[in-house]
Every structure is written in structure tokens, then in C-alpha cells.
């Protein structure tokens, strides 16, 4: 009988496991989650002191955010406060999106190629002490001379479905060339980059499951030349609130369509589709109702978790404004590397038409972005600015005024120019 429980006898005879010095308990606590630390610091006096040690919180913070964003100075020197506030003054979470893309569907211009790559999704879902809630989408759009401005870019929240329901995600195909595209009706031969949906001639099924479509509230272009737009779009205020409301559902998927205003679809007149969405939507996030095994989806949520619940775990952390700066500092080689894998050979061969930046050596930059001369910073005359503020307050979206520049201005005057779009409701 007694042979059955020798281990128990030994361990209960041992003194309680408190002979560990506080420094070692601290090393152990550093592997805990915040909620566990809260529980542990109510155990006894010694543990309470450990739980209040800022060195512990420094270690916890190092597990959650990259080293360069751990500036406790923003939190009165307290790492505990930094962790409990989500380090939102120093770090923003951004989800890399490659290789999501949006391609032009050749309606009439069969010989031309337009594409937009969505690079990162940056989201701060709550109002924080560092700034308003915002969602930013970083993109790089290229095309021929008549590439559209991104201001009508729509973010859609829809429910994607599996199986034989339409629309189906299309695998990546490289088009054979302008000749092939010109033959037949064009749409079948055209490429769709990974993770884009073909709308098809009758995109009704997608609109039936559309929860909301929102236009950006602000935009910042770091490259603004003919045929090449690069920068970020921002959603704030009521538009963001609607997006987040629908994104909280586990089955919700997030789609983006470049330069197409998709609010109010489907239009009453089906004929209007001809002039409607002519970029294919890119799937930025896939809801749980769609397995997406067909073509290696990058962001696949765990069962039962919505975008809002699981995106933080997948996100990378950056200093505020860092991504935009990095986008602006990119050189030509880095941009080419980004496009190299998805560009059809016949487009890549057409150097002069595609790589617009080299085609326009400085001449066509329209005063926006880092190339702009320093005196180009937009300063509204005071009465005019007051008028803008008054109008904005009356219209019920005071938060939308000048938000875009807020993060960038902390270390000096704004580096980039933001265009505020009028929120229609």
C-alpha cells in the first residue's frame, strides 16, 4: 500500500517551493500572460512585489513587441503601464498582405495592364490615448498612363462561401499576352493574381452577401506620378465603425477593390455593371466559412475567431508612421522585386510603359511625397482652417480632421501630405 504513494510522501515532506529567490520567480513570471501575472501577484506579499517589478514588465513587453518600440518614456517610465495600454503610443500592429493583388479586368483596353498590390493592413481598432481608431491599407498601384486615382477604392466586408457557390477564388494564371487576351472575350484569358476573386460578368452573388462597402476617409500618396500611385488609404470615423461592426463576425471576409466605388451596389440598372467594378477584388482576410485550401491562403483564421479577434496574433509591430516612411524610402530595385513574381512576361518586357518612375525622371512628381520641396507643406490660412474645422464639427465628424498627419507630426512637421476625403454620411 505504502509503496503506491512514495512520491507524494516525498514531495509533501519537502518544504514549500518558496526557496526560490525572487529573481528566479521573476524569470518564471516573464513567461506568463498578463492575466496570469495579475492572479499571481495576489498570492502573497513576496509575489506581489515581483508582480510590481518593472523589470518583469520589461520582459513581458519584450515578448510582445519589437525591441525598438519599447520606449517606456511614453508611459512615464513605467513598462507596466506600457504593457497594460498595449504599447499603442509606440507601436502599431500591421498585417502583411502579400501576395494579395487587384487586377484590371480588360473591358475595352485589352492591350493594357493595370495592377494594384495591397501590402499591409494596419489596424488600431479602439480609440487610444495615442490617437483615434484607424485602419490603413498600404498599396502600390501601377499601370499605363490612365491609371485611376485610388480615392474611390472600396473596402468590402462580405461572406465568402465554399464549394460550388460563386464567386470562386481563381488560381494564379499568367496571361499569354495581349494577342491572346484580344482573342475571345478576354476575361477568361486574363490573369488573376493569387487571392483575387473574379467578379464575372454578373457579380450578383457577391453583392447578395455584401455587408458593407466603404470608401477611404483619407489618403496619403508617397508616389504620385502618372501611372504609379503608392501610399496608404485610411478609414476612420463612421466608415471604420461600420467596417469593424461587420468584421467582428467570424464568417466575415475583408475584400478590397482598387479605384472602384462599390457603395450602393447592386445598382438598380443591371446595365450599369458595364461601367462598374472593373478591378477584381483582392481577399485581404478570409472568414471561417471559406476554407480556401485551393490556393494556399496566407491568413487563415482559426475556427470561431473573427478578424478582430485573431489579427493581433498575426500582426507585426512597427513604430507609428514607420511603414509609410519605409514605403517612401524604397528604391527602384525593391519595387521591381515586389512585382517580379506576378508580372506577366509580356508586361515586364515592356519596360518603358510599365516602370513609369524611370520614364519620368523627376519631372512629373506632382508636389506630393518625399520628393516635394520643403515649402510645399500645406498650411491653410488661419481663417480658412477655422472654417474647415467649423464645417467638420457641424457635419458631425470632427475626428476626421487632420488625423492622418497626427502620428507623423509627433517628431516634427508633417513629412507626407494627406488628402482628406469627404465622408458622405
Amino acid at each position: 500500500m505504502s509503496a503506491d504513494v512514495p512520491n507524494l510522501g516525498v514531495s509533501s515532506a519537502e518544504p514549500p517551493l518558496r526557496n526560490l529567490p525572487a529573481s528566479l520567480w521573476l524569470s518564471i513570471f516573464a513567461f506568463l500572460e498578463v492575466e496570469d501575472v495579475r492572479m499571481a501577484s495576489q498570492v502573497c506579499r513576496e509575489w506581489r512585489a515581483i508582480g510590481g517589478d518593472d523589470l518583469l514588465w520589461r520582459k513581458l513587453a519584450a515578448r510582445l513587441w519589437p525591441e525598438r518600440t519599447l520606449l517606456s518614456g511614453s508611459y512615464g517610465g513605467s513598462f507596466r503601464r506600457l504593457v497594460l495600454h498595449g504599447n499603442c503610443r509606440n507601436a502599431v500592429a500591421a498585417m502583411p498582405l502579400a501576395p494579395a493583388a487587384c487586377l484590371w479586368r480588360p473591358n475595352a483596353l485589352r492591350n493594357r495592364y493595370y495592377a494594384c498590390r495591397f501590402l499591409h493592413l494596419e489596424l488600431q481598432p479602439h480609440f487610444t490615448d495615442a490617437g483615434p481608431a484607424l485602419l490603413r491599407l498600404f498599396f502600390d498601384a501601377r499601370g499605363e498612363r490612365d491609371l485611376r486615382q485610388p480615392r474611390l477604392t472600396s473596402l468590402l466586408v462580405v461572406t465568402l462561401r465554399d464549394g460550388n457557390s460563386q464567386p470562386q477564388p481563381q488560381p494564379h494564371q499568367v496571361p499569354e499576352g495581349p494577342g491572346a487576351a484580344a482573342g475571345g472575350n478576354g476575361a477568361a484569358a486574363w490573369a488573376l493574381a493569387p487571392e483575387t476573386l473574379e467578379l464575372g460578368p454578373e457579380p450578383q452573388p457577391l453583392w447578395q452577401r455584401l455587408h458593407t462597402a466603404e470608401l477611404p476617409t483619407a489618403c496619403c500618396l508617397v508616389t504620385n506620378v502618372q501611372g504609379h500611385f503608392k501610399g496608404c488609404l485610411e478609414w476612420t470615423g463612421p466608415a471604420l465603425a461600420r467596417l469593424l461592426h461587420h468584421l467582428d463576425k467570424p464568417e466575415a471576409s475583408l475584400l478590397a477593390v482598387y479605384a472602384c466605388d462599390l457603395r450602393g451596389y447592386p445598382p438598380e440598372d443591371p446595365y450599369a455593371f458595364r461601367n462598374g467594378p472593373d478591378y477584381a477584388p483582392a481577399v485581404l482576410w478570409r472568414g471561417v466559412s471559406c476554407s480556401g485550401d485551393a490556393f494556399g491562403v496566407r491568413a487563415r483564421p482559426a475556427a470561431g475567431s473573427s478578424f478582430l479577434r485573431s489579427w493581433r496574433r498575426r500582426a507585426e509591430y512597427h513604430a507609428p508612421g514607420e511603414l509609410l516612411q519605409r514605403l517612401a524610402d524604397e528604391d527602384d530595385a525593391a519595387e521591381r522585386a515586389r512585382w517580379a513574381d506576378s508580372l506577366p512576361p509580356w508586361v515586364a518586357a515592356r519596360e518603358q510603359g510599365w516602370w513609369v518612375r524611370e520614364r519620368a525622371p523627376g519631372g512629373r512628381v506632382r508636389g506630393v511625397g518625399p520628393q516635394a520641396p520643403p515649402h510645399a507643406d500645406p498650411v491653410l490660412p488661419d481663417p480658412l482652417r477655422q472654417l474647415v474645422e467649423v464645417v467638420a464639427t457641424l457635419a458631425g465628424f470632427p475626428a476626421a480632421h487632420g488625423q492622418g498627419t497626427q502620428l507623423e507630426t509627433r517628431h516634427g512637421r508633417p513629412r507626407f501630405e494627406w488628402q482628406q476625403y469627404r465622408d458622405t454620411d
Partner: protein
Amino acid sequence: MNAKLTLTSNDGQKFEVEKEVALQSQMIKGMLEDIQSAASVPLANVNGQTLAKVVEYCKFHYEATKKGDTQKTKAAIKKWDKAFLNVEQSVLFDLILAANYLHVESLLQLTCQAAAKLICNKTTQEIRDMFNIENDLTAEDEAQLLSEIEWKFE
């Protein structure tokens, strides 16, 4: 080549290991830098049972790193570590102390993580019961604790 080193625990047990294996301990490494001819190291703070485990750990990891850094060996190391940590609480805490004393960083991280797993997802009272800790916080302390720490989340 392959010089041997004898480690002696505080209860007199002797372990003969290769020098390279023992050098994973920063404490022994430092000691050997001072006394290069040493062939025997007495370890006053570690008992025989624990030292046997530490030596086992160091030997395995020395062999594993020699083999190379492929994905397969990494998975094997992880599996081995898991089995290695399948011990009683008291042994685990002895290991933490020994790893700290001998300054074997990887073992310290491993054991601390295992100890943290014991604590996580438990209520305060459950933790107290598990470690036989008496609650020496007065009611006043506890009230103060709840008010002063702003456990505020986003």
C-alpha cells in the same frame, strides 16, 4: 583532445563529463578560465540527483548541436526536452536553482517556462494550494492592491 572533467555534487557523487559538455555552463567556463589545469570541479550548491539531470541535459544538447541544425533535429530536441521536463515539481524547482547556479541559460529558460505553465490559467487560491503558500496579505493589502494597480486593458 576530449579532456575529461569531474563534477562533484554536494553529496559526494561524481560525474565524469567531456570538457566541451561542461562548458555549456557559463559558471564552469569562467572557473576553467581562471584555473586552466583543473580536472575536478566541486559544486557545493547542487545535489547528486539534480546534477545527474543537468549533465543529461548538457550531454544531449551537446550531441544535438554537433549533428547540425536541420528541421528534423530541432523537432527531436523539442520532443526530448518535453520528456526531460516530465518530472516532479520539487525536481523542477531544483533544476531551476541548479541551472541558475551553473548558469546554463537554455536550461534555465526551459525550466522557467515549464514552471510558468504550472501557474498559468489558475486562480490565486489554486496557486496557493499548489505551492503551499500562505496568504500573508492582509485584507487592507488586498484592497490596496486592487485599487492601486490599474489593470486596464484596451
